Each structure stands twice: as structure tokens, then as C-alpha cells.
């Protein structure tokens, strides 16, 4: 019995050293009729479903506009739920990475999911474009080679956080601010950019608090904030937590009159439901769609015709651009040889990074060497009672810098 075990261990060792296949080449070969497989990983469950559905619809319309076919091969879109968190991101990315037919992926929605997910995809050589990850870290040179296959078509929060701080300091003329985040990469980094810019402008940050996702009773933490007597609270979190904070702010002594501002993560009609009447007079920073051209108007018509509703979150156009960026790049590098189509993913990444002057819905898409492709126009919106009644977020910017 013991000998058997010894032999077994030896054989096991031998095999694991010698018999392991080398990492497969990065070329995907498609036989005739086999689809060009793109994968998405968006939030498709939970409080932030509207964000995921919004981007998903943008991708679907982009594929339709592209013609549904790439050099005679149909385009196939499959997806995973990233659940707006790191564990969901890990799981979704592992599933996409374990499918050798996937050529490129679009996602994730939440930066918390992208941070662990993108390296998993890139290990398998799958390039990824995100329509809505705004956290600065992801395209920071310090993020290292794990993020070399990562691009995004949305703005970087270095822009958004600064816009919010400038708005609070110069436009509203407020000097004391507090921030809350929920421990997500997105909220954490965004409030930090805000706090840094706000201090640089000459304001004071009274406190930087944090809650946990899933918390409901925000009154104690708000009481703690109230003890610093801020004039402005920046709460760039997702829908559920932002909703609780917004609602309960009005109920805490000392915070009844304070100005509230959130960011694009909660810029959705679902937020109006979550926050109720407390939302009136609240500010949001979000991409400015009123500045976009005709192509966006056409997109809106298509959206309405196909899904029966207007877009529900601010990233449908970025998702459209992300899909277009990938499809254009594939089109550029795909080689037809006889019946088969060969796509080299290494060349694909290069082509994606080389995208210059692409006319997108959100403006001119030009990628820099870190993967930031957006042409960011961030405006500040103010929600009025009429918006609440209509159940839609405001469409006309309240303030913009440019």
C-alpha cells in the first residue's frame, strides 16, 4: 500500500513537471459559420441592475449597428453577472477566461469588480474594454502589467472628483465638506479625489466616513458627521446606500440644510425611488449628454424603438462606443485564410490601443497609452420636484465647467 502511494506521488510529480502544456498561443481560429464571440460582464442582479441593463442595451445596439456580422461570421454575445463587487468580478472573469472562444470582453460596470477581474482575463490574453469603470487606479501607470489589456471609454474619476470639488467650492461657495464611501473601489477613490481637490482649493474636509455595503441605519454615522458641522456632503456611492444616506440626512439634527452631492454611480431613476422626496435639490455629477451630436439622438430613437424605454443610467453610450471600438479593432486585425478567420489577440490589443479619432457617440474616441479613451465632459445636475414626479433623472445640466 505504501509503495503504491510512493509511486503515485512520484508519477504525479513527474507529470506535473513534464506533461504540462505550454500556454496556448493567442490566436483564435474560427471555422466557417462559427461566431465571433464577445463576452460582457455587467451587473445583472441586485440594486444596480439598471446600470448593467443600460450598458448591455448599448452593446446590443452597437452590434446591430455594426451589421451583426464580422467578415461573414456572426457576432455572438454572452455574459456574466459581476454583481458589482470583487467576488462577483473574480467569478465572472474566471468564467469568461475559461472559455477559449472568447475574443474580447466588455465590462465590468463597477470598478470593484474590474480590479480583480481584469488581471484574470489578461492572464488568458483576453483584452477588455470597460464602459463604466471610472476609478483612477485602473489606468494608473502604477497598476502594473496586469492591466495592459485594459481600456475604457468612460471618464476617469480624476476628472469627475475634481469637477465635484470645484462645483462645491466655487459655484456653491461652500468651505466645509464631509465625504462618505461604502468601501467600494469606485466610491473610495472618488471621494479621495474630491477631498484632495477640495483641500487644495482651500476648503476643509471635516470627516471622511465609511459604511459597509448592506448597511441600512446611517443615522449614527450621520450624527457623527453632523458633529463636524459640514455645509456639504459628498456621497458618491451606489443606489441602495446613497438612497439611505440621502433619506436619513434630512432626519439628523444639524444636517437638514446641508447640500448633498452624489455621482454617476447612482444617477438612475431607481435612485429616485430609493431616496424618495429627500432627493429634491440634490446634486449629481454625470456625463453631459446634452452636448452630444446627432448620432446620439439617433441612438436614443433606436433605443426607444427596441426596448420601449429611454436609457436608465448614464453609460449606455459609453457601452456602445466600447463595443464599436472592439469590433472596429477586430475588423482591422482579423485575417481571412480560406474558410477560416484568424484573430490574433495580441495584435487586437495593439489595434485597440492605437484607436485614434474614432467618431463615437460620446465624442471623439482616442486612446492614450494607459487605456483611457474617453473624451470626458462631466456636468452637474440638480434634481427638481418635477424630475421626481416624472420618475426620471434631470437631462439638462445645472452647471458645467467648459
Amino acid at each position, binding site marked *: 500500500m505504501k509503495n503504491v502511494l510512493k509511486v503515485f506521488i512520484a508519477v504525479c510529480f513527474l507529470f506535473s513537471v513534464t506533461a504540462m502544456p505550454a500556454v496556448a498561443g493567442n490566436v483564435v481560429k474560427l471555422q466557417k459559420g462559427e461566431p465571433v464571440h464577445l463576452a460582457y460582464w455587467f451587473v445583472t*442582479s*441586485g*440594486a444596480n*441592475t*439598471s446600470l448593467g441593463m443600460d450598458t448591455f442595451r448599448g452593446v446590443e445596439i452597437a452590434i446591430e449597428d455594426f451589421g451583426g456580422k464580422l467578415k461573414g461570421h456572426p457576432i455572438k454575445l454572452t455574459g456574466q453577472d459581476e454583481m458589482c463587487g470583487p467576488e462577483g468580478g473574480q467569478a465572472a472573469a474566471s468564467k469568461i477566461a475559461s472559455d477559449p472562444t472568447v475574443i474580447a470582453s466588455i465590462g465590468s460596470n463597477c470598478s470593484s469588480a474590474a480590479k480583480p477581474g481584469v488581471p484574470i482575463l489578461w492572464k488568458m490574453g483576453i483584452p477588455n474594454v470597460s464602459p463604466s469603470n471610472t476609478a483612477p487606479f485602473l489606468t494608473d501607470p502604477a497598476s502594473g502589467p496586469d492591466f495592459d489589456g485594459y481600456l475604457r471609454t468612460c471618464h476617469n474619476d480624476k476628472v469627475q472628483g475634481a469637477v465635484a470639488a470645484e462645483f462645491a467650492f466655487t459655484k456653491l461657495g461652500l468651505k466645509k465638506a464631509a465625504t462618505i464611501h461604502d*468601501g467600494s473601489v469606485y466610491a473610495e477613490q472618488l471621494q479621495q479625489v474630491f477631498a484632495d481637490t477640495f483641500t487644495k482649493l482651500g476648503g476643509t474636509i471635516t470627516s*471622511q*466616513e*465609511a*459604511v*459597509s455595503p*448592506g448597511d*441600512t*441605519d446611517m*443615522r*449614527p*454615522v450621520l*450624527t*457623527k458627521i*453632523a*458633529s463636524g458641522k459640514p455645509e456639504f456632503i459628498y456621497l458618491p456611492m451606489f*443606489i*441602495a446606500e446613497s*438612497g*439611505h444616506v440621502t*433619506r436619513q440626512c434630512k*432626519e*439628523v*439634527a444639524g444636517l437638514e440644510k446641508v447640500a448633498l452631492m452624489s455621482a454617476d454611480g447612482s444617477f438612475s431613476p*431607481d435612485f429616485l*425611488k*430609493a*431616496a*424618495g*422626496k429627500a432627493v429634491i435639490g440634490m446634486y449629481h455629477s454625470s456625463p453631459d449628454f446634452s452636448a452630444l451630436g446627432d448620432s446620439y439622438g439617433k441612438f436614443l430613437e433606436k433605443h426607444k424603438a427596441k426596448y420601449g424605454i429611454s436609457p436608465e443610467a448614464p453609460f449606455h453610450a459609453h457601452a456602445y462606443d466600447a463595443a464599436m471600438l472592439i469590433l472596429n479593432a477586430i475588423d482591422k486585425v482579423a485575417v481571412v485564410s480560406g474558410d477560416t478567420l484568424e484573430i490574433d489577440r495580441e495584435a487586437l490589443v495593439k489595434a485597440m490601443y492605437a484607436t485614434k479619432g474614432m467618431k463615437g457617440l460620446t465624442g471623439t474616441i482616442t486612446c492614450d497609452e494607459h487605456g483611457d479613451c474617453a473624451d470626458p465632459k462631466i456636468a452637474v445636475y440638480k434634481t427638481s420636484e418635477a424630475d421626481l414626479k416624472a420618475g426620471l433623472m434631470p437631462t439638462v445640466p445645472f452647471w458645467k465647467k467648459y
Partner: protein
Amino acid sequence: MFQKWKDRVTVTDIVMWMIGGTLLLLCLWGSVSTIRAGLYTKSHWIDFLIFGLAQGSIYALIATGYTMVYGVLKMINFAHGEVFMSGPFTGYFVATAMWRSDFLDNHPIMAIVAIFAVAMFVSTMVAFLVEKIAYRPLRGAPRLIPLITAIGASFFLQYLFKGLYGSGVNAYPDIEILNGFWMIFGIRVLKIQVIVIIAAIVLMLVLYNFIMLTRVGKAIRAVSEDKEAAALMGINVDAMISTTFIIGGMAAGAAGVLYALMFKQVHFFMGFLPGLKAFTAAVLGGIGNIPGAMLGGIFLGLIESVAPALFLDGLGIIAPYQLKDAIAFTMLVMVLIFRPTGILGERLASKKA
């Protein structure tokens, strides 16, 4: 004398006292420096207390359900958090329907009563069915088996309601008469919190008196003491266990609506965390003991609200409210170290548990 003392105190006891002592010192140090820093005024502290009391009374209501089930079946009813969720989640649709037809604004009291009725009915049915399907066939099985079916039932219910009602977050409509605040003894208190605290206290008193004074309550207590003996006395054990689940379900449904009125948002996962907290509260108070569950719930609510500001602020720990659950669980472990059967639990219970 010394020899006797040495025999009774083991090394582990000393280690535990050291852990407890260190934590106590840290808490004291933190409190003293927080108070000396003078960041919070008296009204802040009162606010913290009231917020904690409101949250705690909801925990207490849910915890009574846990504790009663534990009393009769000696099992952790993991699905109780989902019983708590099912009621207000269904009640949401009633509330929005009434809100659309303006019934909610015109007859708010009747509307609230209707929401309570629907929610309590649904929660009660869910509790009853869970017992009948998942627990009853396993009477007499080893203790871990019903624990697993309870976990299974909990997942099943969560994802059943997710499938039925959708996975998004729904928000209860605003009810005008519950908004605003009252001045009580010169202290500004939110209306909804006063209502929640009073409703919870009334419900718990009714429950307690029902268990202590009525025939059915007596029978339930008999079953939780000794099933066989109760059966010999002519008590229908199965019926009493069902009754326990029904009462627990009603309490959970009521707690759920109070919760929904206070926090507005309902979704399929809303029962998990409060369920866990309420279970903690039940254990804290001494599981199987109804006043203990109430005490534990309120204690837990207060800890969550007050402790981060009081203990941690003074120690210079940033963003202390992220750590409120950690403090709550540390308190639990501390209490259990020195009283292994909870605050009000009998010493005897260690044998049964």
C-alpha cells in the same frame, strides 16, 4: 486557600481574563478620551441612544422568533430572516397600489393596518410552511440535519422571492403622517422612531403575556421544557410547535413592516443581515429565553449605534462606523466567555445546548 484557588482556575481562565481585561481597558480609554475631546454634545449622545433603541427594538422583535423556536425545537431557524423579509416585501406591493389610488394619503391609518395585515399573514404562512415541509419530517434527527435544511430553506426563500418579485431595490412610498418629528421633554425625536419603539414594546408585551398567561402559552412552555412529558400530559406537540412558528412569523412580519417604514427600501436580501443580528441578540440574551432576547436585541442596537463613536473615536480610529458589526460580535464573544449561556440564560442550559 491558595491551593484551592489554583485548582479551580486554569491557564485558559487566566488567558480569557487577560483578553477581557485588555478589551475593557481599551473601551474605557476610548470612552474617556472621546468624552474629553468634547466632539459630541449632549444632544448628539441622546440621538445616538434613540437611534440605537429604535434599531434594537426591531432586532428584539425578530429575536423573540428565534428564541421561541429554539426553545421548542433546540435548533437555529436559519430561515427566520427570510420569514422577516417575505412579509414587508409583499406588503410593498399593497403599499404602492394604495399609494397610487391615493388611499394611502386619505386614510393613512387604515392603509398602515392593511400593510401590517398582509405582511404578517405572508410571514406567518411562510414560517408555518417552512416548519411543515423542512423541519417536521426531521424530528429526532441529529441536530446538524435540521440546521442544513434551515440553511437550504433560507436560500430557497431568498431566491424564490427574488424570482417572484425581481432582484431590484423597491422603496416604500412616503407616508405623510409618519414624517417629521416630535419634541418630547425638549428632545427632538423622529416620529417614526417613537412609533417603532412603542409598537415593538407593545408587541413584545403582548407576546410575553401570551406565553406566560394563556393555556396555549403554557403548553408551548411545557413542550420546550420536555417534549415527551408534554405529550404524556395530553399536549399535541406538533400543533404547539406549529403555533410557535406562527407566533414567531407574526412577530417577524410586524418587525419587517416596522423596518420597512423606518428604512423604506425592501429587497430579497434584506432579511439576511437583520436575521443574523437578531440571532446574535437571542444568543446574547440567552437563547430560549424571551426576556433575554428582548434585552439582547436592545443591547445590540445600542452597541451598534453608540459604541463606534464612544469607544473608537477616542482611540483615533478612522471611519469607526465601518467597524460597528465587529464591535457587536466582539461584545457577543466577551459576554459568552464570562457567561457561556448568555446574559439571562440559565446555567443549566449549558447541558442542554
